[in-house]
């Protein structure tokens, strides 16, 4: 086993320092809204030009892992996801923080990130050949169905108000049409130069989630004096560990979903997080608690988005096809040292390849430990008076939206979307389905268009999209997902009715007694 021989090679003082530095730096970079893991790694690649290949990769790997986890800090504390992969972290993480459990939510997030990350790296070490083959099976038809599977999650994200959720999701899909269609080169809804490039995800994300949040804070600013103060509590870490042990289904589900989706080029962490959240909700014994601040939600999402990291490297290392945008940037870090991905990487440059993979294992621990240490100070953020919070969050919103493409247009788009969202949130529309539509729209549409072009040269649309093993599996998953949503909705309404009937009976009984 080559892996074990090289495992100990990553324990030199310099390499350990790089891993720790990378983990801490990555957490902080990931926590800054707008600075996605991709951006964080891209910023560091030039620094590795002058390093030894193994050391450079160790640094990049540690930053990648930690940045994915770091995005949860802002998601939990101030309801702004640090990166698209952390969208679903907010659903339960932020309610937990508002109940005064920010520290616990962060511990849970870093612990489950570590668990998911380790799972992902284990998949990378043990199952590289079959996963690489599976990744190659995904063409336009398969990716289209995967996107549709993601769309079925909309219903699950908005239980109780399914119709409003579907409206919001459709609005998101419509927003995703803005800009140039990359397959036909046609422009749609570009009535202003600002929209030539379409609406990018991160400004939209910030606008939809953070701006309504700011307005709400402003509304309650008069009550700022009564804000309760949170103190650092003891024994929270043990409590969080207990939650992880008590909910194995959530992190197993999250890790498996994350590993699969991570390996498929073109899908990525944001899709993994949302699907894992939805699936774990469906499997949970207490689905009604999701969205109100249940630890299960945080565990499933954070384990899944970090589980994408390892498998995203599989197609990269074996074929030079990066499984995620961040892996694409990492490719640069390999190439600069003359390390060409492919089977030869593991024979000719085994020392570098295996040391890198081994360092990913150690980096998970570094990330979890330092993440937990940073989380200890979370109560300070929660105690900031609203009036300062509003200013700080607004600055972060502007900075985060601007930094994605260095464009003021994005800041304006962010504010416009935010204002629309604030007004519609008063009518109990939620932003999550909008973002989901925005993310999945291009994935579904472009792959459908590409598939259509290819299908028309062959046997036609029906046989192209409806045959083939992977297609059948994903279509079946879509059907199960929709069926399950209908079933649980029906069950919930029946329970409600039963409860109401019971209540009326009870009142009637008490009345007759009287």
């Amino acid at each position: 086993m080559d892996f074990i021989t090289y495992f100990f090679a990553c324990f030199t003082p310099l390499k350990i320092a790089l891993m720790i530095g990378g983990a801490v730096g990555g957490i902080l970079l990931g926590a800054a809204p707008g600075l996605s893991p991709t951006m964080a790694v891209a910023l560091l690649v030039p620094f590795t030009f002058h390093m030894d290949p193994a050391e450079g990769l160790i640094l990049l790997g540690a930053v990648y892992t930690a940045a994915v986890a770091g995005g949860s800090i802002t998601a939990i504390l101030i309801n702004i996801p640090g990166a698209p992969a952390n969208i679903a972290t907010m659903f339960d993480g932020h309610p937990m923080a508002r109940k005064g459990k920010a520290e616990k939510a962060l511990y849970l997030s870093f612990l489950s990130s570590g668990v998911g990350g380790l799972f992902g790296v284990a998949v990378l070490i043990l199952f590289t050949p079959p996963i690489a083959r599976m990744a190659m099976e995904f063409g336009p038809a398969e990716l289209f169905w995967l996107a549709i599977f993601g769309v079925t999650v909309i219903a699950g994200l908005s239980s109780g108000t399914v119709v409003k959720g579907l409206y919001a999701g459709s609005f998101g899909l419509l927003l995703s049409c803005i800009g140039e269609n990359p397959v036909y080169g046609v422009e749609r809804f570009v009535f202003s130069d600002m929209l030539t490039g379409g609406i990018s995800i991160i400004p939209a994300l910030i606008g939809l989630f953070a701006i309504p949040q700011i307005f709400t804070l402003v509304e309650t600013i008069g009550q700022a004096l009564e804000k309760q103060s949170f103190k650092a509590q003891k024994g929270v870490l043990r409590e969080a560990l207990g939650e992880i042990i008590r909910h194995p289904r959530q992190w197993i589900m999250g890790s498996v979903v994350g590993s699969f989706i991570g390996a498929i080029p073109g899908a990525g962490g944001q899709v993994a997080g949302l699907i894992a959240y939805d699936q774990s909700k469906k499997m949970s014994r207490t689905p009604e608690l999701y969205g109100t601040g249940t630890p299960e939600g945080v565990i499933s999402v954070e384990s899944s988005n970090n589980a994408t990291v390892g498998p995203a490297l599989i197609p990269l290392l074996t074929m030079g096809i990066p499984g995620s945008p961040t892996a694409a940037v990492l490719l640069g870090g390999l190439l600069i040292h003359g390390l060409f991905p492919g089977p030869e990487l593991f024979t000719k440059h085994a020392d570098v390849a295996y040391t890198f993979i081994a360092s990913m294992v150690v980096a998970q621990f570094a990330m979890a430990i330092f993440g937990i240490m940073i989380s200890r100070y979370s109560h300070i953020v929660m105690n900031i008076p609203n009036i300062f919070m509003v200013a700080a969050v607004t600055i972060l919103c502007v900075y985060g939206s601007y930094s994605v493409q260095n464009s003021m247009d994005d800041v304006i788009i962010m504010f416009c979307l935010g204002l629309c969202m604030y007004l519609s949130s008063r009518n109990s529309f939620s932003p999550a389905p909008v973002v989901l539509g925005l993310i999945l729209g291009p994935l579904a549409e472009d792959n459908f268009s590409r598939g259509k072009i290819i299908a028309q040269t062959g046997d036609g649309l029906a046989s192209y999209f409806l045959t083939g093993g992977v297609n059948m599996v994903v279509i079946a998953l879509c059907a199960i997902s929709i069926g399950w949503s209908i079933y649980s909705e029906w069950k919930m309404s029946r329970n409600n009715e039963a409860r109401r009937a019971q209540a009326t009976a009870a009142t009637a009984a008490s009345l007759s007694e009287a």
Partner: protein
Amino acid sequence: MKKLLIPFCLLALLLCGMSGAAMAAYPDKPLSMVVTYPPGGATDFQARIVTTMSSDEKFFGQPIVVINKPGAGGRVGWNWFAEKAANDGYWLSTYNAPHFIAQSLVFKDSKFTVDSFEPIATWGADPAVLIVPKDSPFKTLKDLIDFAKANPGKVTVNGAGLYVGHHIAMLQLAKAAGIKLTYVPEQGGTPAMQSVMGGKVMAGFNNLADAYRNRETVNILAIADLQRHPFIEDVPTFMEQGVEVDNSSVNYRGIFLPKGTDAAVIAKCEKAFLDMFNDKKVKELMVQSGSPMHVLDRKQTAELFTKVKKNLEELLKDIKE
């Protein structure tokens, strides 16, 4: 007295700033370079390599900061650069020919033409190559052309997007061989490569450097350039195989400035960039990473733009109708 202190300090600061700007030679602050593609792409990656030595006193003595403005195949960045970038010499942009030239001809929302920019220098040339999956029935270019002749429109060929070098190469091939091909635009070179490897399309045009790295999984049938390439000496050009596809589709990468930049600044930039491109360390990094280099000065780059524009006008005339 105390009241006057702060305004006085501010005034002093202001004066410092003014005299600095007036006296110091260009450049006296970091330069910004727009890259019109997202981080991780070949252009972004190579741009970061060729500018890595910039803060050395031999060159600019100031760092060059890469700013990614991706979108609409590069048009978002180039539109911004043509319309809004200051022409004081502190804003540079990478160019990709034939991409930006083809887009200026085809899309009506392009806010630029070849004449909107001052070419400075070129660092690289990545020819398009025709690739097929390893187990493809097409063993030679002739196999593919014969099949396409018998089955018009049935051959799917992909590339990195619309009106990029790969698309141009495919149009040239179809025109020269008198065949009908179906083009599948992908979201970048890497997904295009993956689709070919996975056999999702029958063939594809891709970057020479990427195809060269993936020779385990794809076969390279021909190279769309005037001569063979040292990376793949055994692969013939299209011309050698009797198909008139020239080097119009070669992806040239380099630097340009906005129109109206001061002549002295242009001269300084040209010299600094050419020196950087020819620097030993930069060359070593480019060779190591398998990025094909091809250095052209300002005059040669301008000639290249004119030539590519002429060829493209000819080629795209038939498509636009």
